[in-house]
Every structure is written in C-alpha cells, then in structure tokens.
C-alpha cells in the first residue's frame, strides 16, 4: 500500500534531487536502484526487488558473519536492489541503516535530542550498571577503537562524553554531518549518532571489567 509521501520520504527526495545519492556504503541510482558503491561498474549483480530483501542483504558480512551493527563499514557487495517508489526506498534504507532516515529528519527539524555518553551510562541498570565507572580516558580510548569510521562505524557522532568533555580521540570529521565518513569527496546522506548505542555500552562494560 503506497500512501502519501511522509515528511521523511520528502526529505530523502529533496536530498536525491540535489544529487546527494550516497548513504553509508550504498549508491542510489535513478528511481530507485540501490547497490554497494564499490559495485558501480559491475554487471553481474544479484537482483532483488523487495524492500525487505535489504534486511537479509544487510544481515551478514562478506564472510557470513552476523552484522549486529548495521552502520559498520562491512556491507557485503554483489547485489542490486530495485525499488518502485520513494516509500519502498525509505523502507529499504530503514533495513540497511535502521532509523537513520527518521533520525536525520528529526535533526533537520531541530527535534533530535542528543544525549551525552555519561547520561546514557548513568541510567544503565543490571549487567550494564558497572559502565558508570568508566573514566573519561578509558571512554576516549574505547570510542577511538569502536566508533572509528574505517573499521568501526560509519555514523557521525553528535554527542560528547559529558557537557564539558568532547570526544578527543577521533578526527574532527567524525563529528561533522557534512563529511562523508568513507573519506570520499562525494556528498553523502549522513548517518547520525545522537546517543551511544547498546554495542558501545556493552563494550564499555568489558572495558571497565577488564581493567
């Protein structure tokens, strides 16, 4: 069922209209063909045409390992997903990069609530309550390894460690929504991180417990 374009879909359409046709590792061509940007010149791609197929494509990396973090820079190659309309495009993007279109829309409307790391960790309970103990130095070390764009995560970080403590262990472009996190010069639809994910919280637990 195709309904009237939502505001989120309208934002995506406006970005594509301006020629911003990359998101994460994906290239969007025409109306609407999605593929891994590294496959732009290939003609032997496996064809898909259902937005939900994106969920399966995004599930495992090239080696068959489960991808719990969909914005990790290890989306597999070799596929082409052809979609009928903007609504399907948005659905597929929500499978490849969950929540990212909606989070970007909220950011554009100044409605995105950014939450600093300390606030995230301080509200944890149960097995993650121990993460409150992480020091700023440990947090910076952890983020440097876990969130780095080249082999961690392609999101742009919007949060700080706390109100007075920015993350200092990653380059300035990691915090710039205008920067393409693949290090390429072409414009990309940003993947925004407004709050530390559960994977980083879990890693913080390991960091605290191992030191």
């Amino acid at each position, binding site marked *: 069922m195709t309904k009237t374009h939502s505001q989120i879909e309208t934002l995506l359409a406006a970005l594509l209209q301006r020629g911003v046709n990359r998101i994460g590792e994906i290239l969007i061509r025409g109306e609407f063909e999605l593929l891994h940007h590294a496959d732009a010149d290939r003609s032997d791609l496996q064809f898909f045409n259902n937005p939900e197929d994106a969920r399966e494509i995004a599930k495992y990396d090239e080696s068959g390992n489960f991808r719990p973090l969909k914005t990790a820079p290890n989306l597999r190659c070799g596929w082409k997903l052809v979609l009928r309309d903007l609504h399907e495009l948005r659905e597929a993007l929500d499978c490849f990069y*969950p929540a990212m279109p909606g989070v970007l829309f909220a950011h554009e409307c100044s409605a995105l609530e950014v939450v600093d790391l300390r606030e995230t960790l301080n*509200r944890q309970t149960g097995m993650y309550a121990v993460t409150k103990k992480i020091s700023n130095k440990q947090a910076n070390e952890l983020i440097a390894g876990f969130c780095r764009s080249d082999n961690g995560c392609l999101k742009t970080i919007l949060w700080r460690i706390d109100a007075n403590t920015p993350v200092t262990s990653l380059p300035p472009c990691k915090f710039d929504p205008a920067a393409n996190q693949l290090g390429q010069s072409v414009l990309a639809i940003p993947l925004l991180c407004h709050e530390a994910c559960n994977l980083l919280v879990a890693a913080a637990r390991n960091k605290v417990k191992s030191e």
Partner: protein
Amino acid sequence: MLSKPDSALVIVGHGSTVNPDSATPTFAHADEIKRRGVFGEVVCAFWKEEPSLRQVLYTVESDDVYVVPNFISEGYFTQKVIPRELDVTGKVTFRRTRKIKYCEPVGNHPRMTELLLHRAAEVAPGISPRETSLLIIGHGTSLNENSGAAVKEQVQRIAARGDYAEVFGVFMEEEPFVTDWRKIASQPHIVAVPFFVSDGLHSYQDIPVLLGIEAEPTQAASKMDVFRRNPYRVAGRSLFYASAIGTEPLFADVILDQVAAFDSEFAA
C-alpha cells in the same frame, strides 16, 4: 477488525548482538501486520539491535503510537528497561503532540496456553500426554521477581486441565533450573517447550545444552539444515524439544489483540 491508519505500531524485541535469528520472529510479525494494512506505520525496535529503543520514535510520524513488547514476561525488560529507554512514564505518555500507549507484553495474552499446548502436541505426535512430563522453559532472573511469573501461570493453567501426567516450569537463571529436569520429571517421555519469543541464543543454543541434548552450543538455527532430531534419548527417557513459542505465526494476532485490549481498557 482493528483499523488504525493514523496510528503507528512499535513492536519491541530483545534482539541479539551475536545471534542472527533473535530478531527474526519480531520482524516476521511486523511484516504480517504491515501486510494487513491495519496501522499507518509498523516498525520494530530492539534492546540489542537496531533500530534501538532510543531511535525508534524518530522513525514514526504518527502522533498516536502503540508500543507492544514482544516479550514473554512482565518483568525486568517490560517494567524497567523498555519504559526507561523509550522514556514512557506509564500506560499513556504524552510528549509534545504525541500520545504513546504502552501495551501489555505478548506473553500475558490468554491464548498463550493454547499455543503452548499446540506446540507440545505438534512436537511429539502420537505420544500420550498421560505418560509425558511437560516442561515449560523460561528465562527467569534475580533482577525481577516477576520474571518467571508468566511461566508459572501457564504451568498452573496447563496442570489444571489434567491432560499431561506432570507439568513443570524450569528456568535458566532461577530455580528450578533447566538442568534439574532429570530430578523432578518422572515420566518416560519429556516434552520441552521454550516459552521464548525466538529461536535465538537461549532457546536454540543454550537450553539444548542444559537439557542434555547437545554437548555444546550448536550454530544458530538459521545455519543448521534441520531444526532438531526428536526424540532424543537422555537419562533413559525420550525427550522432544520444540521450537520457541514466539515463532508461531499467530503471534501477529496476539500483538493486535494486545492493542485492542489496551483500547478497551483505556478507552482509545
């Protein structure tokens, strides 16, 4: 029939960072509800996967939002973690122009008894319940005393029907433990049904080891050719192990029923 074209449905699952099958039933139920066109928007959110509980409300545009936890127990997650992460303060939370309605988890639904019995009969065809110990397996946790309540309630209901010679609730993290089945079950046949929402880490990889039907955790369910090789001979008994109850397609109806139940209780 339920029709909510101006509302969004958020189905909340636990998810996993290591098991690829944990989120699968939650997505399947969402896809089915989406296919029926009941809601204007249908999305999933997870504690351990994406979209996260902190992201999901940015992905829907409706002002009227129903949240149904695809969880078995009314416990630690449904009472503490999900409300905290979604920043909901009660059954109904108003935020800006939005009304967020927090429904009961699927495991509280009256049809669970019927679904558990159906699973138990299906996995052990031709085996007499009169010579069978039925094990309903739950997670249980010391973090919340209610966690095992859903299992205990189902055990009471099924035992009261008198079909099975014995019915026990056993748990991963509280007593009686799954490994205790050899001590408490007396019948020649054992039917074990995981009261879990998916064939994820616990029900597919951990519990088979605790039951004694696998020596060590196997690969994830989606990586195996066959589901299970029932019956297993363990401790002189024949043991039948079922797929997790939450993989039952009827869970989509249960999710919609929890929305309808919310409406009738809180006069939508």
